[in-house]
């Protein structure tokens, strides 16, 4: 790798993610052993390339099924790209979905130790940050109860508290901020601002709420059907995204109206 791009945190080169769909589980199982059994292929991400610099705050915008979550999973290292290359420089802390990898049988506190140890922190280091996490999560005495008894809001709070307190270099948040009440949201916002401004972390944020995106991010990437269709500063990205959604919705409405008209016509003809 070249040393020139030292300030790049995340780099994607021609990344494609293909999901192979089989008729059922049995065919999928057969396909493990026989190469000639082919499934239907569909691309969740196709030929995507971009770089994110260290310290950048990027929002990923796009409708459902645009490939945002798949992309985040690949950056986190949970899934693998089918082809292409992803290089990451720095410790990734990711909050994918709400439950974010908790063991339901362990208590909140045990989960703190467990998750932090997966980020290769030592017990002593974890002990140092444990009070911060407990306090941040506002779980009080629930922290020693098994996580399976938590509500989704509590899980999200704990997940968020762990992820922002384990000293991340790249922070990835997927929709998790949409839960919790106003005051907790405010606290998270403040914490993220603090991390970004003081520690110069890289922040990647997936959301449907353009308001939240504008609050946190400076750069916006709009995705559609697995491709990047817009990449610019956040204001233009949001304008573009809102515009796109409006147009799409209008087109859909028109289509529907047209269909209805046709149906009415057909009916009239029958009656007539």
């Amino acid at each position, binding site marked *: 790798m070249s040393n020139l791009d030292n300030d790049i945190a995340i780099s994607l080169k021609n990344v494609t993610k293909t999901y192979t769909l089989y008729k059922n589980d049995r065919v999928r199982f057969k396909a*493990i052993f026989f190469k000639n059994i082919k499934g239907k292929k569909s691309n969740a991400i196709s030929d995507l390339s971009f770089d994110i610099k260290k310290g950048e705050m990027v929002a990923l915008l796009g409708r459902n099924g645009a490939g945002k979550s798949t992309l985040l999973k690949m950056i986190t290292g949970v899934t*693998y790209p089918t082809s292409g290359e992803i290089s990451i420089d720095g410790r990734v802390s990711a909050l994918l979905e709400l439950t974010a990898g908790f063991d339901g049988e362990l208590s909140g506190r045990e989960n703190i130790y467990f998750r932090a140890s*997966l980020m290769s922190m030592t017990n002593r280091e974890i002990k140092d940050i444990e009070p911060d996490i407990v306090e941040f999560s506002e779980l009080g005495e629930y922290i020693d109860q098994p996580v399976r008894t938590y509500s989704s809001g509590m899980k999200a709070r704990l997940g968020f508290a762990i992820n922002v307190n384990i000293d991340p270099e790249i922070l990835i948040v997927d929709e998790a901020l949409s839960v919790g009440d106003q005051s907790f949201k405010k606290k998270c916002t403040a914490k993220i601002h603090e991390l970004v401004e003081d520690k110069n972390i890289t922040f990647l944020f997936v959301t449907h709420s353009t308001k939240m995106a504008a609050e946190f991010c400076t750069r916006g990437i709009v995705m559609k059907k697995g491709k990047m269709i817009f990449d610019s500063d956040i204001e233009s990205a949001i304008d573009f995204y809102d515009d796109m959604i409006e147009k799409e919705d209008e087109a859909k409405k028109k289509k529907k109206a047209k269909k209805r008209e046709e149906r009415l016509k057909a009916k009239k003809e029958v009656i007539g």
Partner: protein
Amino acid sequence: MEILNTLVELLNDHIRYRRQIFKLAKSDVIKKYSGSALGWSWAVIRPAITIFVYWFAFQIGVRRGRPINGYPYFLWMISGMVPWFYIRDSLYTGSSSIRKYKYLVKKIKYPVGTIPTFVSLSHLAVNIVLQFIMLVIYIAYGDRPDIYYLQIILVNIGMFVFWTSWSLFSSMLSAMSSDFLNFVKSAVPALFWLSGVLYQVSRIRSGFLRKCLLWNPVTITANTYRNSLIYKKWIWETPTEMRNYIIITVIMIILAVWAYRRLKKDIPDVL
């Protein structure tokens, strides 16, 4: 060659995540028994009941209380039965370990290849407690511990390597298809009854069948355990068994590495 590279990759993952593996094994053991009133005693009660049932059927029923080589049938049986409990756990729970720890695959970055290892480790830890209880029973019957007792450590290592490889192989395939998991579960009784846990393989009349059963890892483990406790034989004194065990272990490791290589990238998408 590629298989070798993957094997190195797997071993590297194990070394890098060794602390986490032991942690996860520990929490797996605790999870198994916490939350029930009798807690830890279940680890002993359940096998004890199983042993009692088989002892009753064979001692009181089939064999009419005849001892084997001067050893009471009960003593002879438990030295095959106790290691079998670990094997049974590997077959049932080991095969579904990746499914069980789905969140480690789908939600956080964690080396999938080490999941069967810590599950296997947790089974072994529980089983070692049982083995100690068994040794206490032997000593209480008047057996004198000698140098051959040390061979038990070797039996455990052999067992762990084979069944952890097996768990990796079968849990990878089971994650792809629940049919495979069901197939494994239905094959467990066959593996048990066609082994030398409850009867002496050496007394089977057909030489061909005797040879076949000596390829069953369950038979070899039970025999080696008994060689250490009862017959006082070193493993090299039974070269056929030793050779067979090494061969099937190597095959199992190759299969496990192959399955890992083939499916590692698919599993997070399918699970």
